[in-house]
């Protein structure tokens, strides 16, 4: 609610309308039965939220040169209130497309919110200490990871493969994403590649160095 009021204060001409909308939204959300995380998961998948935010809402953000994170943020265990969450989905900033009431109802969004707050998302998969980067390099190339992400995990805007070397997400999120990827990435099931092999691949990617600052490379300042 505070977010709405802040916005309303800045845009006086629309204050009445905005507050009215917020109260209406809030009243609708409060009047409905308790949220259903299971249905929320189904809605989350139907709307393909996972394409940008990951299968468990872990996000895909990466630090930019300016020191800020860019890309779809983590939305699991979001700090937003339900009302702010709904408002953000309806009128997002940045690259996120808006989702109108015809695409997803307020009630369904409340279910999604409940899903994202559920304890089951907090399950972590730890990187085993036995992970071997040399094996990982072999698996990375043999299993075709290099095809979209490059031999060094540098990524490509053409393939849509994000930069992985070094990885920007924890091992737990890495495994989750590989198993149930967003966007165009094909899924790698446990039948095709084991958790241990993924750990080796992750270890290889961890061994990739951060790039030198582009400002230190004369050819990149022409």
């Amino acid at each position, binding site marked *: 609610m505070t977010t709405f009021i802040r916005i309303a204060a800045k845009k006086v001409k629309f204050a009445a309308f905005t507050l009215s909308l917020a109260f209406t939204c809030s009243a609708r959300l409060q009047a409905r039965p308790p949220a259903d995380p299971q249905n929320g998961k189904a809605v989350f998948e139907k709307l393909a939220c996972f394409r940008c935010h990951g299968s468990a809402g872990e996000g895909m953000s990466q630090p930019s040169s*300016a020191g800020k994170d860019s890309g779809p943020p983590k939305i699991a265990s979001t700090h937003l209130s339900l009302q702010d969450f709904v408002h953000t989905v309806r009128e997002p900033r940045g690259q996120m497309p808006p989702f109108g009431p015809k695409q997803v109802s307020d009630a369904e969004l409340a279910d999604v919110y409940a899903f994202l707050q559920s304890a089951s998302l907090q399950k972590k998969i730890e990187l085993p200490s036995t992970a071997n980067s040399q094996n990982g390099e072999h698996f990375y190339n043999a*299993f*075709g990871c290099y095809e979209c992400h490059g*031999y060094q995990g*540098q990524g490509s*805007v*053409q393939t849509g493969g994000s930069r992985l070397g070094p990885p920007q997400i924890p091992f737990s999120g890495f495994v989750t994403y590989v198993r149930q990827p967003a966007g165009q990435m*094909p899924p790698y099931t446990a039948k*095709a590649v084991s958790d241990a092999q993924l750990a080796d691949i992750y270890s290889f990617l961890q061994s990739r160095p951060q790039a030198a600052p582009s400002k230190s490379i004369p050819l990149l300042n*022409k």
Partner: protein
Amino acid sequence: MAIRNKNSVNRRNFLKSAAVGAAAISAVPGVPAASATPAPRVPAAFPISPEAELPSSPAEILTTDRSGSDFMVDVIKSLGIEYVCANPGSSFRGLHESIINYGGNRSPEFITCCHEESSVGMAHGYAKIEGKPLLVMAHGTVGLQHAAMAVYNAYCDRVPIMIIGGNLIDATSRISQVEWAHSVQDAASILRDYVKWDDLPISLTHFAESTVRAYKMAMAPPMLPVLLIVDGELQENPIRADASLEVPRLTPTAPPVGDSGAIEEAAKLLVSAQNPVLIAGRSARTPAGITYLVELAETLQVPVIDQMDRMNFPTRHPLNQTERSRELISSADVIVGLEVNDFWGAVHSFRDQMERTSRPIARSDAKTISINSANLFVKSNYQNFQRYPEVDIDIPADTEATLPALTEAVKRNLDASRKSALSDRRAKLAAAHDETLQRTRDAAAYAWDASPVSTARLSAELWNQIKDEDWSLVSTVGFLSRWPLRLWDFEKSYHYIGGAGGYGIGYNAPASVGAALANRKYGRLTLNIQCDGDLMYAPGVLWTAAHHRIPLLTVMHNNRGYHQEVMQVQIMADRHSRGIDRAKIGTTLTDPHIDFAKLAQSMGVYAEGPIADPKDLAPAITRAIQVVKRGEPALLDVITQPR
């Protein structure tokens, strides 16, 4: 117009005289008609040119001073066609000989090609630099069949090309089984689905009118290939001494401008929009097209997303926001497509998983406007017209011709307060542009010293050595993560010419040679970043470049495979959770590795490689550029990262 000579022989009279001749032979006493000595063969009755010289005496005539093909050269010269690209073929031998002897092999000059796909590909690249067609000649059967894929690319890419297919229409004039195999009842049917117009002239006057008409149609937006099927006998038969033949005057067709009411409506939407965005596909046909788009963008201070099917908008202009495409389209309240090939695709995302899904990325309340000349010419069979886009204002017109009127309408609708708001918008966009460029450079730094060479490093090394030259990048860059477009300063119309159009592999090498041919007279340094799989379709075009001294720097993006297909097979293997390490089977070009340097050297092209260490790249580029500056082609085989 030519005036038909009253002494000319029409088809009916000729048939009559031929029949009388035959009857006279069979009437010789004591000689059975069947065993009579056959009369010398005379020109067939169809097609018959009224201008053709016919035998008037029993003595066999074996030579002529002027054949139909000489007049055809007069017509071709009248159109200012500089080159004719062809792999030689007997069905157009008459025209071939007239071009090199009667025409003096100048305008047009005969360019020897090793494959008809190369001929058309060269014409494709040439037209995008020069803004006009050159001529391609091919057999009406096997030649057009070879040429077909390249013609389809040009059709999809809206490029004007003049094509002449030779044929022997009169079955009784075919002298061998080869000519039978190389003759066809309806030759144009091979290409008819993807040319703008075709014709089969049966007289020289008909040829003249159809050739000028074809040129005129090819050059009218949407520009497209055109095809004439020219009979061998029409080429080879002599022209009567008293025949009256004239070359029709060419009057260029004015490009279609959008409806004034629709333009006014579009202008009002743009002026009142809070977050408008322009998407350019093939909006610039000429250098003026870039100027017009810059003026519109600056008048509105509106972001431009350049899909770069042509060089539409300077890459380092602060309003160029191509790298923020998704973000801008999803927040836009007015979206304008300017010759956008796939408007629906521009405002939707598509997901290629087990279930193919799509969803809109534009706001549901966004107003959409399309200006597109493609709507003026659509055929049914081939589906390059893309998915049906629901737009609010559809202006079927040439964008370049329409932009000045749109800009003027925008200016009329802008008041002072609105201009002030637009100024603030520009400042924000300029900051976003700078931040995007910095992010791009940061990304390029990854794998900087890797071997194989990263495509970012390859692009940066090239840019460092060409940026102070008058350069022209004539290859598509989609397969190397668009690094040149993201890092280089593209500004002039010839700095970039887009891609194949129809995504038919085999375009890049010949189109680059054709573009370099057009650039030669301007002294430009022409660059081609060449994919390995594409070059293997018809590498003989390297010989054409060497033979005709066409200066072109080719730098191989040699990732040793049809990498797009590696990924496609990988997707299937992953989807089936089996054999995920076998996607290279049938998709890669290894064992043995192709030695592109030796391949090029064998055809007389200076070449170095393979180069796998990025440190070796800069000196090799320096040496190759020196060769190109001497007026010759050069090739560097660089082993690269996949994308």
